[in-house]
């Protein structure tokens, strides 16, 4: 596979650095050679596309152009970046006239055919669930997680290719492959309120609260997200939210790649779990410990069984001997 | 207004006036002609430079009729019938499809730009599609302008 262009985007540089690190570590350990897009610019998420279509698409296309210098594929872990870049990809590739228009206003033209990948999509298609399922060394079977897709990973179908935008499965599958215990719930794609988080905190808190309580309802130890913004709302603002709404949620929120990384045997430290405000470390360690117990228990049972079998065989031998003796006499 | 009516009886809006192209349509009675009727009933605006000949079925059209139209000075010819499978006579458009496809492929050899001929399928219920087909086709012919063809 030719080099994959890696587009971090603003969040992964700062607020979601742990997402960036865990992702890179996972990619490296999976033997995927990626290269960070040189001289990348803002993807235009949130403000640009609401203001001016051409400029917004040009902004995103510029990154495609930069990526083209690396290879034919661009991985954008942040769903917001993914959406903007994908959007540009689809329109620019389909409409030659528009591409010309965009090139018109860019410093140098984009002539390539770069395909944009979202993180889950990339892992599933490029690594494959079967392969991934073989790799885990740490047993996460006792870690109950609910995958939270948010609004940007699954929708809209014509962009993401996800056929069931209400109940996407790709993160469920990846987490299962990583060995975690994936729990079914109904809030996979509910809005976390990110877009109004600043102007209207109340709404954001109400929406995020629903997600948290639903996760508890489903009996999850943690929510697994793949979006820095969702993570911010659910993790960073969880205390705020508790105060404002008089709730007492304590629901860790992990990044997809953190869970996969843990599965692959990386430590809590390496996966930077300590970066989270709701510290997931206890939950994770408890789960891993419990898994060990469960395994031990299983082994003990197995041994007992083996012992029984051995004894039985012994007895048979004895009886047989006795029989022979009688016969001789 | 007065001037308009005077124009109406005069020939200023004539088909071979400045910047006009002459496009002939040959439509099957059951699907496309009805589709064009539907477009009319729905008051869907369509280009002026278009005259329709009604035939019972695209299977009744001989490629030579189209060549004849060109010879007589048409700048473009559009043939339209029932979608494959929907022919009122079951098979007509299947036969037509082969003949018209060959014609379409031969015309460039005779010195025709491809945009001057098109065959397509428009059903009786596709008024909108009809408007779009005829508008786009004529736009294509207008781009080329009238033929000063010599061969045919």
């Amino acid at each position: 596979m030719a080099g994959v262009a890696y587009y971090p985007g603003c969040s992964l540089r700062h607020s979601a650095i742990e997402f960036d690190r865990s992702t890179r570590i996972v990619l490296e350990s999976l033997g995927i050679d990626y290269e960070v897009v040189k001289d990348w610019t803002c993807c235009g998420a949130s403000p640009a596309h609401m203001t001016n279509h051409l400029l917004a698409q040009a902004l995103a296309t510029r990154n495609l152009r930069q990526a083209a210098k690396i290879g034919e594929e661009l991985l954008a872990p942040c769903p917001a970046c993914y959406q903007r870049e994908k959007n540009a990809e689809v329109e620019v590739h389909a409409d030659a006239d528009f591409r010309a228009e965009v090139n018109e206003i860019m410093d140098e033209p984009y002539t390539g055919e770069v395909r944009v990948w979202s993180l889950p999509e990339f892992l599933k298609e490029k690594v494959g669930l079967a392969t991934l399922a073989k790799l885990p060394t740490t047993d996460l079977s006792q870690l109950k997680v609910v995958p939270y897709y948010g609004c940007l990973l699954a929708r809209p179908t014509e962009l993401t290719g996800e056929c069931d935008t209400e109940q996407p499965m790709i993160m469920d599958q990846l987490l299962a492959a990583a060995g975690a215990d994936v729990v079914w719930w109904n809030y996979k794609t509910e809005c976390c309120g990110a877009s109004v988080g600043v102007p209207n905190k109340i709404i954001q808190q109400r929406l995020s609260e629903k997600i948290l309580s639903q996760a508890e309802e489903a009996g999850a130890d943690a929510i697994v997200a793949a979006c820095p913004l969702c993570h911010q709302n659910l993790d960073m603002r969880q205390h705020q939210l508790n105060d404002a709404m008089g709730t007492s949620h304590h629901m860790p929120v992990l990044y997809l790649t953190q869970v996969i990384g843990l599965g692959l045997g990386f430590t809590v430290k390496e996966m930077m779990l300590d970066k989270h405000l709701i510290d997931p470390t206890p939950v994770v360690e408890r789960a891993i410990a419990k898994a060990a117990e469960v395994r031990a228990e299983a082994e003990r049972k197995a041994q007992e069984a083996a012992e029984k079998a051995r004894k039985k065989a012994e007895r048979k031998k004895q009886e047989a001997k006795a029989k022979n003796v009688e016969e001789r006499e | 207004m007065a001037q308009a009516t005077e124009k109406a009886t005069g020939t200023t809006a004539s088909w071979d006036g400045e910047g006009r192209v002459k496009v002939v349509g040959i439509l099957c009675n059951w699907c496309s002609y009805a589709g064009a009727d539907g477009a009319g009933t729905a008051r869907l605006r369509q280009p002026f430079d278009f005259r329709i000949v009604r035939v019972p079925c695209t299977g009744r059209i001989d490629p030579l009729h189209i060549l004849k139209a060109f010879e007589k000075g048409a700048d473009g010819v559009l043939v339209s019938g029932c979608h494959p499978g929907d022919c009122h006579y079951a098979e007509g458009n299947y036969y037509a499809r082969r003949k018209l496809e060959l014609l379409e492929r031969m015309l460039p050899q005779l010195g025709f730009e491809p945009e001057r001929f098109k065959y397509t399928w428009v059903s009786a219920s596709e008024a909108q599609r009809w408007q779009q087909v005829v508008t786009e086709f004529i736009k294509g012919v207008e781009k080329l302008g009238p033929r000063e063809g010599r061969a045919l």
Partner: protein
Amino acid sequence: MRIGVFVCHCGTNIAATVDSEGIAARAGELKGVVHTEDIIYTCSEPGQQAIQQAIREKNLDRVVVAACSPHMHEVTFRRTVEGAGLNPYLFEMANIREHCSWIHADKPEGSEKAYDLIKMAVAKVRDLEPLYANEVEVNKDVLVIGGGVAGIQTALDLAEAGLKVTVVEKETTIGGTMAQLDKTFPTIDCSACILTPRMVDCAQHENIEIMAYSEVDRVQGYVGNFTVDIRKKASMVDWDKCIGCELCQQKCPAKAPDAFNEGIATTKAIYIPFPQAVPKRAAIQVDYCRWFQEGKCRVCERVCPADAIDYEQQDEYMQKEFGAIVVATGQDVFPWEEYYHEYGSGRIPDVISGLQYERMLNASGPTHGHVVRPSTMGQKDVEPEEPKTVVFIQCIGSRDESVGRPYCSNVCCMYTAKQAILTKDHVGMETEVYVFYIDIRAFGKGYEEFVKRAQTEFGVKYVRGRVSKLYEERGKVKVRGMDTLLGKQVEIDADLVVLASGITAADGASELAQRLNISYDQYGFFKESHPKLRPLETNTAGIFLAGACQAPKDIPTTVAQASGTAAKVLGLLAKDKLKTSPMIARVDQSRCVSCWKCIEVCPFGAPEKEELRDGSYKSHIIETVCQGCGICVATCPVNCIDLKGFGTQSVLDQIEEVLLT
């Protein structure tokens, strides 16, 4: 040649953008035109009289009427000129309305184009020659495809009038969708009480033959003389022996999904859909039968008192002759699971379709009329639980472009109101019943009053707005929606959600249409010849429509239309002979080179080899068989075949005339 040209104003429909008067005057210059006239409404009585008068006084021998589409009034005007003693085929129409005045805004342009169209019509009319219709014997038997209420009504009306009718039904019993219904709006009278007697009438009527569990494979021929291939599907039960005692169904050990109950219950591999089935005969669903799947069992064979079971039975093929065909194949329920992911795509047991709920309300249904939550149905030591809150959501697969169904399904508003009332009636007035709607469409007689009753008398809560999401939470179905009147989000914890799934074209409708050579719209509903002038006919002479196969319909409309269709068929078959269109192909044998390509390409087998006196063979078209498509005309290399009324020369002349400068 003495041609008369009559230009219509059609009030302002044409005159607004076409100077009818002016172009009428100009048409006088055209070769052969001796009389021109512009008329306000040409199709009106005075209009037609004007034409006839002109024909007589100016003894015209050709007539051109420039007005609307020939599909609209060609027939009318042919009759007009015939009335004046002129051969009706010496007439041509110029379509200056649909193809001109209605699609152009600029009057000078409109007038110019209209004039060109008249030029073409005149050019064509010059080439026309008098034609004389041919007469064929008419077969008076009628085929009705589909045994739903529409088919039943048509069949009975026709049979009563003395015609022999064959009803072909693809299921094992007639009755169709109406047989599945519990009550009917707006009277809340029992559906079965209306339908089943009619079904029995069908079965017992001497003039009606019911061919259940059969399909139409192929249709050949033409009005008055159709030849139809019918396939009786193998039911694995000899229906001549079967007495419908249901013993096999009781004893059969293999469960199978129950289509009649819309899958909310199971039936057996060998089954009779419902007790009042007509004909009441059993059939085996091979995919679920243990004998066919595992090669053991044969219980039904053992228990059958009539020894009717026949595991070797094969499909039966037969060919029948008919004079007319009525298509009454009805509709299907919109498969919402495939489209509405936000409603759980069928994952949530307590979210069901309207027709499934109908079965539940039905006294002869799987719950014997008791309304229960499907999630609590058919489980061991779980007492089926009655819902306390029921939510109805309207316009599922109707008026929803996102699922490719922009049309209104016509019945959902009303059946939802009915089911809402019945819910209150069955479960008790204290049940909470909500209806989420876009608009209430209660257009029929007594409909609006009916909906009002639901709201006032029964206290059904109507919420104007769409439901955005359904999901399970704490054993309830969470209904999240919008009340657009209050402008607020609403959330309801429901025990049961009923989706008013709309009507979609019957499965396989377009394939059938292709077999019948009738047109259908993009949704698969069959197309009537003209919405107002010929609403019951198709574009293919002798084939008629009845019921929801043409468009979504409720029962009253369907039955009314069915009777109307019966009347149309009677009108057609009242004659002993039918005039066939003389606009057909004819061979000039003096030029025929006997290459027989015409025979090769004709879809109808009209051309034949005819021996001449000199012993040579030439092509000849059998007039009654030719349908006038003209495929042979376009194929004949010497062009010795011509299509009367659409002659090759007339096509060329129209083109030449209009391109001439």
